[in-house]
């Protein structure tokens, strides 16, 4: 076989590879591209489809959903839910991870295994009793119900991430501090927490993203208009529900719901991706 033919075949194969990748990349990016394009169209100009960016982009849809459709309030509710749940999950998981790494006690294995094993339980399985117990306590449509439920659902994974990390910290550091007479609390604050900073950040961000993206918990536990989150708003605003047929408006709303994630992703890409891979798709 001549070199020339060989080279041509190689070039052809490379072209085929590129074609597959271009197709995959286009398919992946196209829906969000079309979302953006539609969101900048004037509703009166929109006739069901917008494939190319308009020459006269408008921010009107954004200001309308933000102001008149209550996306400002929904945005705040989503922030409150995701930040509080992520904070509670991260703090409690840090304490638990430390307790499970630094103490040996009866029932340790069973409790740790049981806690982490709860990762396998989807929220839908517990939603019925959770709703009933929350209403018995008078907490439905109160901030506490959504935040506690969301934190509880994120906790097993948070403990898993932080326990794996803290368990790998060099034990000599703690032993040296112990010899110096440092209390367990001081060892926690001065050694365990500072050294676990990257894992704590990952845990917080991932819990916040899951809580931000969750639909079921706020849909069931936060049913009032005052507590509607972005995801619940999108789910109830969609065509057919309340009959909002204004696509550019809806697409502006969806864009608002994705924007904070895009920013978080661009800021902390590497750590985030690693954590997401470990956490699995949810």
């Amino acid at each position, binding site marked *: 076989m001549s070199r020339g033919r060989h080279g041509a075949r*190689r070039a052809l194969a*490379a072209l085929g*590879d590129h074609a*597959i*990748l271009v197709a995959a*990349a286009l398919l*992946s*990016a196209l*829906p969000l591209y*079309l979302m953006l394009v539609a969101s900048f169209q004037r509703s009166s100009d929109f006739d*069901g*489809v*917008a*494939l190319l960016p308009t020459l006269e982009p408008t921010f009107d849809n954004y200001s309308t959903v933000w102001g008149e459709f209550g996306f400002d309030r929904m945005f705040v509710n989503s922030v409150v839910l995701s930040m509080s749940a992520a904070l509670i999950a991260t703090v*409690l*998981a840090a*304490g*638990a991870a430390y*307790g*499970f790494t*630094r*103490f*040996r*006690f009866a029932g340790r294995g069973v*409790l740790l295994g*049981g806690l982490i*094993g709860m990762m*396998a339980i*989807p929220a*839908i*399985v*517990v*939603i*019925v009793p*959770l*709703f*009933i*117990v929350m209403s018995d306590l008078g907490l439905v449509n109160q901030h506490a119900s959504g935040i506690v439920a969301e934190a*509880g659902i994120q*906790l*097993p994974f948070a403990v898993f991430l932080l326990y794996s990390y803290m368990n790998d910290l060099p034990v000599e550091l703690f032993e040296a501090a112990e010899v110096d007479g440092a209390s*367990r609390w001081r060892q926690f604050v001065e050694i365990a927490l500072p050294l676990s900073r990257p894992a704590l950040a990952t845990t917080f961000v991932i819990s916040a993203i899951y809580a931000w*993206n*969750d*639909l079921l918990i706020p849909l069931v536990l936060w049913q009032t208009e005052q507590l509607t989150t972005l*995801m619940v708003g*999108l*789910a109830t*605003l*969609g*065509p*057919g529900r309340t009959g909002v047929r204004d696509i550019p408006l*809806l*697409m502006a709303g*969806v864009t608002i*719901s*994705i924007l904070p994630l895009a920013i978080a992703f661009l800021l902390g890409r590497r750590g985030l991706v690693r954590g*997401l*891979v470990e956490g*699995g798709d949810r």
Partner: protein
Amino acid sequence: MSGVPALRAARAYPWVLPALGVVGFVLAYPIVKVVQYSFTDRTTFLDGSFVGLDNYSELLRDEIFWRAFENNLILLLSVPLSIVIALAITGILYRGVRGSRLYELLIFIPFLPAVASIAVVFLYLLASDGPVNEMLRGVGADSLAHPWLTDERTAIWAVLGVVLWKRVGFTVLLFMARMASLDRTLFDAAAVDGARWTRTYWQVAVPQLRSIIQFAAVIGFIEAFSWTFAYIVILTRGGPDRSTFTLEYFLYRLQFDEQLVGLASAVAVVLLVAAVAVAAYRIWLARRETFA
């Protein structure tokens, strides 16, 4: 470590109890209750009484239950499909074509947004006069243009398409992360030749990805049996004519539209059994890997 066991436990508990308490309240206690409810005819605000296995036998006789189960199985097809597609893409990316970082980033895009956000976008894309049909008509494929989500024959398949669209990028990401830890020199010789590369990739690299493929399959399974709720509630709301109910959506409707706690709980127990089976399988896999 010193001291009597009881004392050591007393010192450890303040650290672990808050987390255990919240998880107990949000997950463990409700799991016990849901099993208990499934044997009663309870409604949301009336305690009801013990009815044995009545709820389960009613489910087994319920046409919607079986259709929902079948739809979960259809959505489960997203698992093998996404794995095969992701393996093909990973093979090309790993060989290292020009611009592969950019491709990787673009392919990862679908993973980031919430299911709810994505689903609303696809409501627009798949509408009868939406972009997908418009593009099909544009290339002369008028006969393929179709009300994807509102026709009983295509609705669940359209949902499968959306699930697949969201899954592939994440699966590629998983596989690429694993490939990075393989010995690159195994492939360098083969990378020069396209045909040899393809053979080497599928025969040498892919078998080494076995554990991560199993992982992708397990979480895909969990998703198809527990996280389809947001897709269905937005894309089809179970319609048309209840043809796209899944078990999660069925449970939700039984509980929150019909207040049938007992029956909804029986569906929850079915999902619970599936979740526990998958978790057990995952642990068994991990054990076998450790002791092999």
